[in-house]
């Protein structure tokens, strides 16, 4: 018998077959997505050239032969190499990592608050983080020079909604809607602060407005490194706490009676979610619904066990945001849309679907 107590019995019931098929399909789609994404961008570069440049590694920049033929000048090739290695690839990695963070955070928040509609964006974490980061702009610090200060300030801003929902989500038997409405109110509050900062915006910087709309355009290897580090560390801890999340689904009192230090675990989970969301927001702006949609896709495939839902929601979230980023660049070329637009196109109807399905199904008592 393996280590995972999954339903890997001799004759698997049809559901598990369907699930396995869906998982394989999703995996194949993910691989295809990663393979095709370097081809997407406002500048048209022949597919062969892109792969040739990638195959040469980051150092190989320049000669026309790299770009596959005499038709391409060395200068042209250098620009393409620059685009592939310094723009497209970092943007892809940023999208994967930020999406992973949002997916992990969404799954965690849904588990902590036993609320299938929870999401860092809907609960106001994202707008709090955005407001925190925007404080930097007031002090004349531009996005490009902010460096690590940007996620740090975003974290400080995210702490406010983080602590508010920590308290609001736990006290008493509130309806799931209460938590969401708290998030709506927080979002509105932070958005108005944010708007004030941006109107004041001494830099007069269009970049700031664009950052706010969300996108991977400011990606760099340094940022990728930071986000990657956060994804690994936050993701590891969140995934390890999947057992506790499972028990929390029985109610906080029951979880505690079974030995879970509920207060501490919940605080850690919410704080880590805040750290993750803040980092994602700092580098990619406010992006909605990735955290909402990803865990639900995962549950469809692997069931409700949070030990699996949390890490896999990270994977799916990464893929989802990368897909959204590709879409943002492809819908109205050569314009690059804010990446929040395609995620909302998918996520908002999905949110409504969840909301009304939830109302329709009666909640059994267990």
């Amino acid at each position, binding site marked *: 018998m393996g*280590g*995972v*107590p999954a*339903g890997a*019995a001799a004759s698997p*019931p049809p559901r*598990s077959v369907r699930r396995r098929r869906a998982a394989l399909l999703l995996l194949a789609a993910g691989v295809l997505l990663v393979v095709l994404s370097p081809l997407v961008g406002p500048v048209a570069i022949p597919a062969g050239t892109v792969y040739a440049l990638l195959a040469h590694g980051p150092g190989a920049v320049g000669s026309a032969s790299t770009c596959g033929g005499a038709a391409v000048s060395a200068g042209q090739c250098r620009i393409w190499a620059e685009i592939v290695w310094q723009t497209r690839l970092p943007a892809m990695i940023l999208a994967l990592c930020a999406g992973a963070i949002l997916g992990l955070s969404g799954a965690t928040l849904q588990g902590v608050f*036993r609320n299938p509609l929870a999401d860092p964006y809907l609960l106001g974490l994202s707008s709090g983080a955005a407001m925190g980061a925007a404080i930097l702009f007031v002090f004349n610090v531009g996005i490009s020079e902010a460096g690590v200060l940007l996620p740090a300030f975003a974290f400080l801003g995210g702490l406010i909604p983080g602590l508010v929902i920590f308290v609001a989500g736990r006290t008493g038997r509130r309806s799931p809607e209460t938590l969401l409405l708290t998030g709506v109110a927080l979002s509105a509050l932070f958005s108005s602060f944010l708007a004030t900062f941006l109107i004041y915006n001494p830099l007069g910087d269009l970049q700031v407005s664009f950052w706010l709309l969300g996108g991977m355009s400011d990606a760099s290897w340094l940022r990728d490194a930071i986000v990657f580090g956060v994804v690994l560390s936050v993701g590891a801890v969140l995934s*390890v706490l999947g*057992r506790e999340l*499972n*028990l929390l*689904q*029985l*109610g906080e*009192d*029951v979880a*505690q*009676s*079974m*030995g*879970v*230090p509920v207060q501490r675990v919940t605080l850690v989970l919410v704080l880590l979610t805040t750290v993750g969301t803040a980092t994602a927001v700092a580098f990619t702006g406010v992006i909605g619904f990735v955290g909402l949609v990803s865990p639900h896709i995962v549950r469809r495939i692997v*069931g*409700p*066990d949070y030990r699996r839902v949390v890490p896999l929601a990270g994977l799916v979230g990464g893929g989802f945001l990368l897909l959204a980023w590709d879409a943002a660049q492809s819908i109205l070329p050569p314009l690059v849309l804010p990446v929040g637009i395609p995620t909302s196109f998918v996520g908002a109807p999905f949110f409504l679907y969840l909301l009304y399905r939830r109302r329709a199904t009666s*909640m*059994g*008592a*267990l």
Partner: protein
Amino acid sequence: MTPAPPAALTATNVTVRYRAVPALTHVSLEARAGEFVALAGPNGSGKTSFIRAALGLVVPTEGTIAIGGVPVPELSLAARARALAWMPQEEPAGDNVSIRDYVGYGRYAHSQRFVPEGVRDREIAEQILRDFGFAGRESVGVQELSGGERQRLRLARVLAQDSPVLLLDEPTAHLDMGYQLDLLERVHGIARSQGRTVIAALHDLNLAARFADRIVVLQRGRKVADGAPAAVLSPALLRDVWGVVADLRRDERSGLPYLIPRLPVLEVVPPDRSRGLRVHVVGGGGSAAPILHALVAEGHRVSLGAVALFDTDSETAGELGIPTATELPFVPLGDEVRARNRELLQEADAVVVAPFQVGPGNVAVLDDILQVAVGKRLYLVDTGVAGRDHTGGVGTERLRALAARSVRVLDSADLLRALASASGSPAAQSDDADRGRVRPLERLEKPR
């Protein structure tokens, strides 16, 4: 006798307050290993508060609860979970996890992070799944089970915690009879065979009497009884604590007490006294009960005469708050009781003779009516005297004499009409909807 096993759970003088409202007041309780203790009491009597205090979910303002001698707050959460397992009355619906995973949750406090699952954990979970009839269905989702099976599965999860003390809060709520018995049989068997202590809040006293070794009765946060079911359950306790009237019987096969709670007690909307008549009813053996109800409902001031204690009529009178002359059961009427009855007869405007059985013990009542109730309006509820006389003629004679001076009515409705028409009492014309209307109540106003 073997020496009593050590106390698994000891509550000493526990007081719990929510804000200022006391939920438990100075409750002390001891449960030994292998003992099944039922916590009984009306809603809000403190059963759940006691369980939550034992779990450390609420902190007593006074007193301590100790498990195996160690006060609960001194135990780490994991140690608590290994000592006490809790099945709350209600839980969130939760996720549709597999039966296998769900029972495995119970092993949380025994397992370590990064060590996936010990052999022992798996064995315990698998044993429980087999015992509980879930073998072969381990990968079925918990939400696909019926309500009864889910409750059984919750018990399985609680048992997987492998704790010496089990705290069950209304484990049989919402279950049908079969599942109630099934669940409590299992709990009972586990307490017996594994020496685990069970403390279960149970509303159903018959189930409590059947399965528990002891019943602890709580009332408004105080312990009012503690002992073997047969010793604890008494009509007086049921009346005082639950405000119900119950017949207590003994099951001949098991020798255990069981009870049949009777009709909800009635509350009478205070009638307009000025409209009613002063009516004295002479009855016994339940013959007067419908008449009493009818008269009270109509707004008359009613009294009852010369009946035995515990007689249906005297109990009905007790429920309706009717002044009554009562004698001890199975003895002839004493002088004192007769005097009291005569007093009531004298005060009455009208006297109603219910169709009671006349025997040597109570024939004197008829004499009293004939002597005292001179000039009063007499009503004989009767269709004849045949078969009612057990005195060998005296009773028949007295009844005939009474009949000669009485208005004979067929039943209580007939009686009300006769009373109304004779006096021109406003009750006859009154169609005032609420006056004197009898309204069923769940239970009596409890004594403060």
